[in-house]
Protein backbone atom coordinates (compact mmCIF):
# COMPACT_ATOMS: atom_id res chain seq x y z
CA UNK A 1 0.00 0.00 0.00
CA UNK A 2 1.24 3.47 -0.86
CA UNK A 3 0.83 5.91 2.00
CA UNK A 4 1.84 9.49 2.56
CA UNK A 5 2.12 11.94 5.43
CA UNK A 6 -1.31 12.80 6.76
CA UNK A 7 -3.13 15.81 8.16
CA UNK A 8 -5.54 13.48 9.89
CA UNK A 9 -5.30 13.20 13.62
CA UNK A 10 -4.40 9.80 15.03
CA UNK A 11 -7.95 9.31 16.32
CA UNK A 12 -9.43 9.89 12.86
CA UNK A 13 -6.83 7.64 11.24
CA UNK A 14 -7.57 4.86 13.71
CA UNK A 15 -11.32 5.15 13.18
CA UNK A 16 -11.16 5.27 9.39
CA UNK A 17 -8.55 2.55 9.01
CA UNK A 18 -10.55 0.33 11.36
CA UNK A 19 -13.77 0.75 9.43
CA UNK A 20 -12.47 0.56 5.85
CA UNK A 21 -9.84 -1.34 3.96
CA UNK A 22 -7.58 1.52 2.87
CA UNK A 23 -5.72 0.92 -0.38
CA UNK A 24 -4.38 4.44 -0.87
CA UNK A 25 -3.97 7.65 1.04
CA UNK A 26 -3.27 11.05 -0.49
CA UNK A 27 -3.50 14.74 0.26
CA UNK A 28 -5.17 16.91 -2.35
CA UNK A 29 -2.25 19.31 -2.16
CA UNK A 30 0.06 16.60 -3.49
CA UNK A 31 -1.55 16.66 -6.92
CA UNK A 32 -3.81 19.68 -7.36
CA UNK A 33 -1.18 21.56 -9.34
CA UNK A 34 -0.62 18.61 -11.65
CA UNK A 35 -3.23 15.88 -11.95
CA UNK A 36 -0.77 13.66 -13.83
CA UNK A 37 0.64 12.88 -10.37
CA UNK A 38 -2.75 11.52 -9.32
CA UNK A 39 -3.10 9.64 -12.57
CA UNK A 40 0.21 7.85 -12.07
CA UNK A 41 -0.66 7.05 -8.47
CA UNK A 42 -4.02 5.58 -9.41
CA UNK A 43 -2.49 3.50 -12.20
CA UNK A 44 -0.41 1.76 -9.53
CA UNK A 45 -3.39 0.76 -7.40
CA UNK A 46 -5.88 0.08 -10.17
CA UNK A 47 -7.23 -3.45 -10.41
CA UNK A 48 -10.06 -5.28 -12.14
CA UNK A 49 -12.36 -5.30 -9.17
CA UNK A 50 -12.61 -3.45 -5.88
CA UNK A 51 -14.31 -4.85 -2.83
CA UNK A 52 -17.17 -2.86 -1.30
CA UNK A 53 -15.05 -1.85 1.70
CA UNK A 54 -11.96 -0.62 -0.12
CA UNK A 55 -11.25 3.08 -0.03
CA UNK A 56 -8.66 5.58 -1.23
CA UNK A 57 -8.43 8.42 1.25
CA UNK A 58 -8.17 11.88 -0.25
CA UNK A 59 -7.51 14.55 2.36
CA UNK A 60 -9.12 17.72 1.08
CA UNK A 61 -8.22 20.40 3.57
CA UNK A 62 -7.21 23.29 1.38
CA UNK A 63 -9.23 25.66 -0.76
CA UNK A 64 -10.59 24.84 -4.16
CA UNK A 65 -10.95 27.29 -7.02
CA UNK A 66 -14.47 28.31 -8.01
CA UNK A 67 -15.31 30.01 -11.28
CA UNK A 68 -18.43 32.11 -11.62
CA UNK A 69 -20.32 29.94 -14.10
CA UNK A 70 -18.89 26.55 -13.27
CA UNK A 71 -20.87 24.58 -10.67
CA UNK A 72 -17.96 22.63 -9.20
CA UNK A 73 -14.61 23.39 -7.65
CA UNK A 74 -12.03 22.94 -10.38
CA UNK A 75 -9.88 20.67 -8.22
CA UNK A 76 -12.77 18.42 -7.29
CA UNK A 77 -13.94 18.25 -10.88
CA UNK A 78 -10.45 17.25 -11.96
CA UNK A 79 -10.28 14.58 -9.27
CA UNK A 80 -13.45 12.92 -10.52
CA UNK A 81 -12.33 13.25 -14.12
CA UNK A 82 -9.09 11.40 -13.39
CA UNK A 83 -10.85 8.61 -11.49
CA UNK A 84 -13.23 8.13 -14.41
CA UNK A 85 -10.38 8.23 -16.91
CA UNK A 86 -8.40 5.55 -15.05
CA UNK A 87 -11.68 3.67 -14.60
CA UNK A 88 -11.67 3.32 -10.86
CA UNK A 89 -15.14 3.37 -9.31
CA UNK A 90 -16.00 6.57 -7.46
CA UNK A 91 -17.21 4.70 -4.39
CA UNK A 92 -13.58 3.95 -3.60
CA UNK A 93 -12.97 7.64 -2.85
CA UNK A 94 -13.09 8.60 0.80
CA UNK A 95 -12.95 12.38 0.88
CA UNK A 96 -11.88 13.78 4.22
CA UNK A 97 -12.72 17.44 3.86
CA UNK A 98 -13.18 20.62 5.84
CA UNK A 99 -15.58 21.94 3.20
CA UNK A 100 -18.72 21.53 5.24
CA UNK A 101 -21.63 20.97 2.86
CA UNK A 102 -19.58 19.83 -0.13
CA UNK A 103 -21.60 16.59 -0.33
CA UNK A 104 -24.16 18.35 -2.51
CA UNK A 105 -21.44 19.17 -5.04
CA UNK A 106 -20.18 15.59 -4.91
CA UNK A 107 -23.66 14.20 -5.40
CA UNK A 108 -23.95 16.27 -8.55
CA UNK A 109 -20.59 15.01 -9.81
CA UNK A 110 -21.48 11.42 -8.93
CA UNK A 111 -25.20 11.07 -9.66
CA UNK A 112 -25.22 7.27 -9.35
CA UNK A 113 -26.10 6.60 -5.70
CA UNK A 114 -24.43 3.20 -5.92
CA UNK A 115 -21.13 4.68 -7.02
CA UNK A 116 -20.64 7.67 -4.77
CA UNK A 117 -17.66 8.66 -2.64
CA UNK A 118 -17.76 8.47 1.12
CA UNK A 119 -17.50 12.00 2.46
CA UNK A 120 -16.29 12.83 5.95
CA UNK A 121 -16.74 16.52 6.64
CA UNK A 122 -14.56 17.68 9.51
CA UNK A 123 -12.28 20.57 10.38
CA UNK A 124 -10.34 18.50 12.89
CA UNK A 125 -6.86 17.96 11.52
CA UNK A 126 -3.34 18.10 12.89
CA UNK A 127 -3.01 21.57 11.39
CA UNK A 128 -6.22 23.02 12.72
CA UNK A 129 -6.81 21.19 15.96
CA UNK A 130 -4.92 19.75 18.87
CA UNK A 131 -6.12 17.48 21.63
CA UNK A 132 -3.74 19.26 23.94
CA UNK A 133 -5.51 22.57 24.58
CA UNK A 134 -4.42 24.04 27.90
CA UNK A 135 -7.11 25.63 30.03
CA UNK A 136 -6.56 29.29 30.75
CA UNK A 137 -8.22 31.47 33.34
CA UNK A 138 -10.58 34.15 32.15
CA UNK A 139 -9.70 37.30 34.08
CA UNK A 140 -11.64 40.20 32.65
CA UNK A 141 -9.62 42.82 34.50
CA UNK A 142 -6.65 41.92 32.35
CA UNK A 143 -8.46 42.94 29.18
CA UNK A 144 -6.77 46.04 27.79
CA UNK A 145 -8.19 46.24 24.27
CA UNK A 146 -11.60 45.49 22.79
CA UNK A 147 -10.22 43.60 19.81
CA UNK A 148 -7.52 41.57 18.15
CA UNK A 149 -7.05 41.04 14.43
CA UNK A 150 -4.18 38.96 13.13
CA UNK A 151 -4.00 39.15 9.37
CA UNK A 152 -1.69 36.42 8.12
CA UNK A 153 -1.13 35.54 4.50
CA UNK A 154 -2.11 38.28 2.04
CA UNK A 155 -5.73 37.93 0.96
CA UNK A 156 -8.19 40.44 -0.45
CA UNK A 157 -10.39 40.34 2.66
CA UNK A 158 -7.39 40.85 4.94
CA UNK A 159 -6.16 43.87 3.03
CA UNK A 160 -9.69 45.25 3.15
CA UNK A 161 -9.95 44.61 6.89
CA UNK A 162 -6.67 46.39 7.56
CA UNK A 163 -7.78 49.41 5.53
CA UNK A 164 -11.11 49.45 7.37
CA UNK A 165 -9.47 49.38 10.81
CA UNK A 166 -7.00 52.06 9.80
CA UNK A 167 -9.58 54.33 8.19
CA UNK A 168 -11.86 54.16 11.22
CA UNK A 169 -8.93 54.85 13.57
CA UNK A 170 -9.50 51.48 15.24
CA UNK A 171 -5.86 50.41 15.28
CA UNK A 172 -5.46 51.66 18.89
CA UNK A 173 -8.56 49.64 19.86
CA UNK A 174 -7.88 46.50 17.85
CA UNK A 175 -4.43 44.97 18.26
CA UNK A 176 -3.56 44.23 14.65
CA UNK A 177 -0.77 42.57 12.75
CA UNK A 178 -0.24 42.27 9.03
CA UNK A 179 2.66 41.09 6.94
CA UNK A 180 3.61 43.36 4.06
CA UNK A 181 5.24 41.99 0.91
CA UNK A 182 8.26 39.84 1.70
Amino acid at each position, binding site marked *: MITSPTLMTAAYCDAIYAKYSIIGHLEFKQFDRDFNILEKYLQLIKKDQFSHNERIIIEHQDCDYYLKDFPYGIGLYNLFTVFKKIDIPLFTILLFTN*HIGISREINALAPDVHDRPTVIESFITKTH*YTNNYQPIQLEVDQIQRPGLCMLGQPRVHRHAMYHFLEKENFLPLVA*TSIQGPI
Partner: protein
Amino acid sequence: MTYLVTNPWTRVNETWTDPNINCVPVTQTYCDLLIQGQANSTRFQVEFYKHIAVDIVTETVYNYPYPHVTEKTLRPISCKRMFILVAPPGTLKLLHSKGFKTFADVIDERYDDEIDPICRWHMICQSIKEFVIKPLDEIHNIVQHYQDTLENNFQILINLEKIECRKIYDPNS
Protein backbone atom coordinates in the same frame (compact mmCIF):
# COMPACT_ATOMS: atom_id res chain seq x y z
CA MET B 1 -10.02 16.45 -19.56
CA THR B 2 -8.71 18.22 -16.51
CA TYR B 3 -8.39 21.97 -16.23
CA LEU B 4 -5.55 24.18 -15.16
CA VAL B 5 -6.93 26.59 -12.60
CA THR B 6 -5.00 29.75 -13.23
CA ASN B 7 -1.64 30.89 -14.33
CA PRO B 8 0.06 31.86 -12.05
CA TRP B 9 -1.42 28.98 -10.11
CA THR B 10 -3.48 29.73 -7.00
CA ARG B 11 -5.95 27.83 -4.84
CA VAL B 12 -7.90 30.91 -3.87
CA ASN B 13 -10.38 32.70 -6.09
CA GLU B 14 -10.77 36.16 -4.62
CA THR B 15 -12.86 37.95 -7.19
CA TRP B 16 -15.34 39.63 -4.89
CA THR B 17 -14.01 43.17 -4.74
CA ASP B 18 -16.15 46.27 -4.86
CA PRO B 19 -15.09 49.77 -5.89
CA ASN B 20 -16.30 51.10 -2.54
CA ILE B 21 -14.13 48.74 -0.52
CA ASN B 22 -10.43 49.50 -0.35
CA CYS B 23 -8.68 46.19 -1.06
CA VAL B 24 -5.36 47.61 -2.23
CA PRO B 25 -2.57 45.28 -1.07
CA VAL B 26 -1.02 46.52 2.15
CA THR B 27 2.57 47.43 1.41
CA GLN B 28 3.93 47.82 4.94
CA THR B 29 4.32 45.34 7.76
CA TYR B 30 2.42 46.42 10.85
CA CYS B 31 2.33 44.73 14.22
CA ASP B 32 0.78 46.08 17.39
CA LEU B 33 3.10 46.10 20.42
CA LEU B 34 0.71 43.80 22.26
CA ILE B 35 1.38 40.98 19.81
CA GLN B 36 4.85 41.98 18.67
CA GLY B 37 6.87 39.00 17.55
CA GLN B 38 4.18 36.47 18.38
CA ALA B 39 1.85 36.87 15.44
CA ASN B 40 3.28 33.83 13.66
CA SER B 41 3.36 31.53 16.67
CA THR B 42 -0.24 31.74 17.70
CA ARG B 43 -1.79 28.52 16.54
CA PHE B 44 -3.41 27.63 19.81
CA GLN B 45 -2.61 29.62 22.88
CA VAL B 46 -0.70 32.79 23.41
CA GLU B 47 -0.14 35.16 26.24
CA PHE B 48 -1.62 38.23 24.61
CA TYR B 49 -5.10 36.74 24.21
CA LYS B 50 -5.77 37.49 27.87
CA HIS B 51 -5.55 41.19 27.05
CA ILE B 52 -8.29 41.26 24.40
CA ALA B 53 -12.05 40.71 24.40
CA VAL B 54 -12.96 39.79 20.84
CA ASP B 55 -10.92 38.18 18.09
CA ILE B 56 -11.75 39.45 14.62
CA VAL B 57 -10.92 36.28 12.72
CA THR B 58 -10.08 36.62 9.03
CA GLU B 59 -10.44 33.03 7.92
CA THR B 60 -8.42 31.55 5.07
CA VAL B 61 -11.24 32.26 2.64
CA TYR B 62 -14.06 34.78 2.67
CA ASN B 63 -16.03 34.54 -0.58
CA TYR B 64 -16.44 30.80 -0.69
CA PRO B 65 -19.39 28.43 -1.12
CA TYR B 66 -18.74 26.48 2.10
CA PRO B 67 -17.81 27.23 5.68
CA HIS B 68 -14.09 26.51 5.87
CA VAL B 69 -13.04 26.41 9.51
CA THR B 70 -9.36 26.36 10.39
CA GLU B 71 -7.21 26.95 13.46
CA LYS B 72 -7.92 30.68 13.07
CA THR B 73 -11.51 30.21 14.21
CA LEU B 74 -10.64 27.63 16.86
CA ARG B 75 -7.96 29.86 18.41
CA PRO B 76 -10.26 32.33 20.22
CA ILE B 77 -12.39 29.40 21.40
CA SER B 78 -9.32 27.69 22.84
CA CYS B 79 -8.38 31.01 24.52
CA LYS B 80 -11.92 31.56 25.85
CA ARG B 81 -12.52 34.72 23.86
CA MET B 82 -15.42 36.10 21.88
CA PHE B 83 -15.09 36.34 18.11
CA ILE B 84 -16.39 37.91 14.94
CA LEU B 85 -15.83 35.87 11.79
CA VAL B 86 -14.71 37.36 8.50
CA ALA B 87 -15.50 34.09 6.80
CA PRO B 88 -17.88 32.39 4.37
CA PRO B 89 -21.59 32.60 5.19
CA GLY B 90 -22.92 29.88 7.46
CA THR B 91 -19.74 29.52 9.49
CA LEU B 92 -21.41 30.57 12.74
CA LYS B 93 -24.29 28.25 11.94
CA LEU B 94 -21.82 25.41 11.53
CA LEU B 95 -20.28 26.17 14.93
CA HIS B 96 -23.76 26.23 16.48
CA SER B 97 -24.44 22.81 14.99
CA LYS B 98 -21.41 21.49 16.88
CA GLY B 99 -22.73 22.93 20.13
CA PHE B 100 -20.74 26.16 20.31
CA LYS B 101 -22.58 29.26 21.42
CA THR B 102 -21.90 32.73 20.09
CA PHE B 103 -22.65 36.28 21.12
CA ALA B 104 -25.71 37.55 19.30
CA ASP B 105 -26.89 39.51 22.36
CA VAL B 106 -24.05 41.99 21.99
CA ILE B 107 -22.68 41.42 18.49
CA ASP B 108 -24.97 41.60 15.50
CA GLU B 109 -24.33 38.20 13.91
CA ARG B 110 -26.80 38.48 11.06
CA TYR B 111 -23.80 38.83 8.75
CA ASP B 112 -23.49 35.04 8.88
CA ASP B 113 -26.73 34.66 6.91
CA GLU B 114 -25.77 37.11 4.18
CA ILE B 115 -24.57 35.35 1.04
CA ASP B 116 -23.60 38.43 -0.94
CA PRO B 117 -19.94 39.10 -0.07
CA ILE B 118 -20.20 42.88 -0.39
CA CYS B 119 -23.31 43.16 1.82
CA ARG B 120 -21.76 40.72 4.29
CA TRP B 121 -18.62 42.83 4.39
CA HIS B 122 -20.53 45.94 5.37
CA MET B 123 -22.49 44.03 8.01
CA ILE B 124 -19.30 42.61 9.52
CA CYS B 125 -17.68 46.06 9.61
CA GLN B 126 -20.76 47.49 11.31
CA SER B 127 -20.67 44.71 13.94
CA ILE B 128 -16.99 45.41 14.60
CA LYS B 129 -17.63 49.12 14.81
CA GLU B 130 -20.46 48.77 17.31
CA PHE B 131 -18.40 46.55 19.57
CA VAL B 132 -14.96 48.14 19.64
CA ILE B 133 -16.18 51.65 20.44
CA LYS B 134 -17.74 50.48 23.70
CA PRO B 135 -16.00 51.72 26.87
CA LEU B 136 -13.58 49.20 28.35
CA ASP B 137 -15.66 48.88 31.54
CA GLU B 138 -18.65 47.84 29.51
CA ILE B 139 -16.52 45.36 27.58
CA HIS B 140 -15.29 43.84 30.85
CA ASN B 141 -18.91 43.39 31.90
CA ILE B 142 -19.83 41.81 28.59
CA VAL B 143 -17.01 39.28 28.78
CA GLN B 144 -17.94 38.54 32.38
CA HIS B 145 -21.52 37.97 31.26
CA TYR B 146 -20.30 35.44 28.69
CA GLN B 147 -17.95 33.62 31.04
CA ASP B 148 -20.07 30.44 31.14
CA THR B 149 -20.45 30.46 27.38
CA LEU B 150 -16.70 30.80 26.86
CA GLU B 151 -16.01 27.99 29.31
CA ASN B 152 -18.66 25.85 27.65
CA ASN B 153 -17.17 26.50 24.21
CA PHE B 154 -13.74 25.49 25.47
CA GLN B 155 -15.12 22.22 26.85
CA ILE B 156 -16.86 21.46 23.56
CA LEU B 157 -13.64 22.12 21.69
CA ILE B 158 -11.56 19.72 23.76
CA ASN B 159 -14.17 16.96 23.37
CA LEU B 160 -14.94 17.60 19.73
CA GLU B 161 -12.55 15.12 18.19
CA LYS B 162 -13.93 12.28 20.29
CA ILE B 163 -17.52 13.17 19.36
CA GLU B 164 -16.75 13.56 15.66
CA CYS B 165 -14.81 10.30 15.42
CA ARG B 166 -17.72 8.46 16.97
CA LYS B 167 -19.76 9.41 13.90
CA ILE B 168 -17.50 7.30 11.71
CA TYR B 169 -18.55 4.18 13.57
CA ASP B 170 -22.14 5.32 13.99
CA PRO B 171 -23.22 8.07 11.55
CA ASN B 172 -26.41 8.62 13.55
CA SER B 173 -24.64 9.35 16.84
